[in-house]
């Protein structure tokens, strides 16, 4: 082959130290995928390509430096050796400035992000605290109202005892306090809270109309035994009708 002939004519037989050439594959990277086959490097993938060049250079360096050391060719520049560099100091300054500015920009953006995150978190915490305070206030007021209504004679809420079991209230011996308000009133309190929902509390809805649980047949027809066993049936429960009441009123005037 003409090429081979030419090559053989052209080739110089120099000592390696003159040429310093190394032919090597790449440094095997534990992270690299596949069998690090050279053909797998996609030339369009810039990062992969540059990494392959880098690894090749690394392999060459790792191979050559020991040889050079053996041949006593210095590879490390001593710190007091000052000589002209390929790039001027001005150039290096520019490079350093650019790197610094890039880093600063990154840091600034990181700080801004963190600040934003912290503000969000802070706001969340704030709202939680406010809600908790409102809840506590509400509980306190309820406890105070209960005491005012006479349901509980204990002033436990002042000690900020959160765990007040409801059963303790009923344990007191006094009947009057035990019953407290009327059964009807108690029912309404239970349903709507203390001093609570006024509007819409008396509605003739289908459910309330069909709810006959509070119907006592003996009471309605005045049939059952009186409460005290005496003849005072009418007195407590039977309220005269509207006409009778009006007559009473006009008669009283």
């Amino acid at each position, binding site marked *: *082959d*003409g*090429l*081979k002939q*030419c*090559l053989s*004519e*052209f*080739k*110089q037989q*120099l000592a390696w*130290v*003159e*040429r*310093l*050439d*190394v*032919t*090597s*594959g790449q*440094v095997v990277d534990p992270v690299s995928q596949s069998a690090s086959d*050279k053909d797998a*490097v996609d*030339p369009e993938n810039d990062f992969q*390509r540059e990494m*392959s*060049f*880098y690894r*090749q*250079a*690394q*392999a*060459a*360096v*790792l191979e*050559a*430096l020991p040889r*050079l050391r053996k041949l006593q*060719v*210095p*590879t*490390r*520049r001593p710190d007091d050796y000052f*000589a*002209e*560099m*390929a*790039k001027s100091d001005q*150039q*290096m300054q*520019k*490079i350093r400035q*650019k*790197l610094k500015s890039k880093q600063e920009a990154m840091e600034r953006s990181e700080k801004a992000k963190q600040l934003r995150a912290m503000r969000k978190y802070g706001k969340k915490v704030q709202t939680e605290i406010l809600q908790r305070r409102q809840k506590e206030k509400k509980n306190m007021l309820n406890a105070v109202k209960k005491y005012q209504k006479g349901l509980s004679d204990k002033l436990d809420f002042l000690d900020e005892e959160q765990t007040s079991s409801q059963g303790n209230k009923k344990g007191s011996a006094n009947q009057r306090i035990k019953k407290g308000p009327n059964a009807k009133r108690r029912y309404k309190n239970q349903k709507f809270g203390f001093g609570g929902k006024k509007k819409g509390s008396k509605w003739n809805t289908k459910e309330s109309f069909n709810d006959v649980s509070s119907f006592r047949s003996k009471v309605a027809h005045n049939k059952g035994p009186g409460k005290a066993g005496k003849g005072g049936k009418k007195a407590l429960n039977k309220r005269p009708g509207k006409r009778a009441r009006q007559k009473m009123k006009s008669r009283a005037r």
Partner: protein
Amino acid sequence: GKWKNKERVLIFSSRGINFRTRHLMQDLRTLMPHSKADTKMDRKDQLFVINEVCEMKNCNKCIFFEAKKKQDLYMWLSNTPQGPSAKFLVQNVHTLAELKMTGNCLRGSRPLLSFDPTFDKEPHYALLKELFIQIFSTPQYHPKSQPFVDHVFTFTITDERIWFRNYQIIEEDASLVEIGPRFVLNLIKIFQGSFGGPTLYENPHYRSPNMHRRLIRLSVAAKFREKQQVKEVQKIKKKGSKVLIEEDPTEVVFETPAEEKPVEIQLVKPESKPIVKDKKKPRKIQRKKQKKLFRTE
């Protein structure tokens, strides 16, 4: 020690190069202390004149940059008296001055040359490898060189091209930083003589930049032509779909043309009609309002 290996490389260019090429040339001159510079060569001279120029400067190697059409850059690497030469198309040039390349090296320090194992597999690549070694390696004990080895040139073959990179060796454990410059060489031909002679090898994968540009233009033109053709076909289809109906003689039977009126020429202007305001008809503004309501409904 004594400087024995007398290699001298002449680096110069033709006229019509742009700033990037000029900087690349300067960078190569700084990196290679065994190089010599020369003035720009006129393009009307033929290439074998370069051999004479080299002889005058006492150089035995040459790197010649040639710019064509102010767009394409070609590089010749040659061993001047009689040896082989090669022509490349240079692409993707990045110079030393780019701020992304942060490494630095001593001016004139000797480089380590690193080659791809693919260089040993083909005879033309082996020849190129020898050429690169002889040109790019700084001779030992060269008066302008520094004795340290602190940077490495890599030549890699990827995608049928030769990629050149220059790295600075920072640590002994082979941590590297790129210094630059960097470029990509696309081999065109290898000649037996210097800047001439019989062709030893021609790269089958090489496509000249003119061809490349032409292909792009052709593809664009082909797209346009295709669109036009499609349009024309559509036109024909539209025309052709009309079925020709025969004339029906029975159609005309019932036609009775109207009586001809005598032509009356008006010589006097007709009386103008009195303008009567129609109170029933809503005024313009009100009509507009009605329209608006109607629209919003």
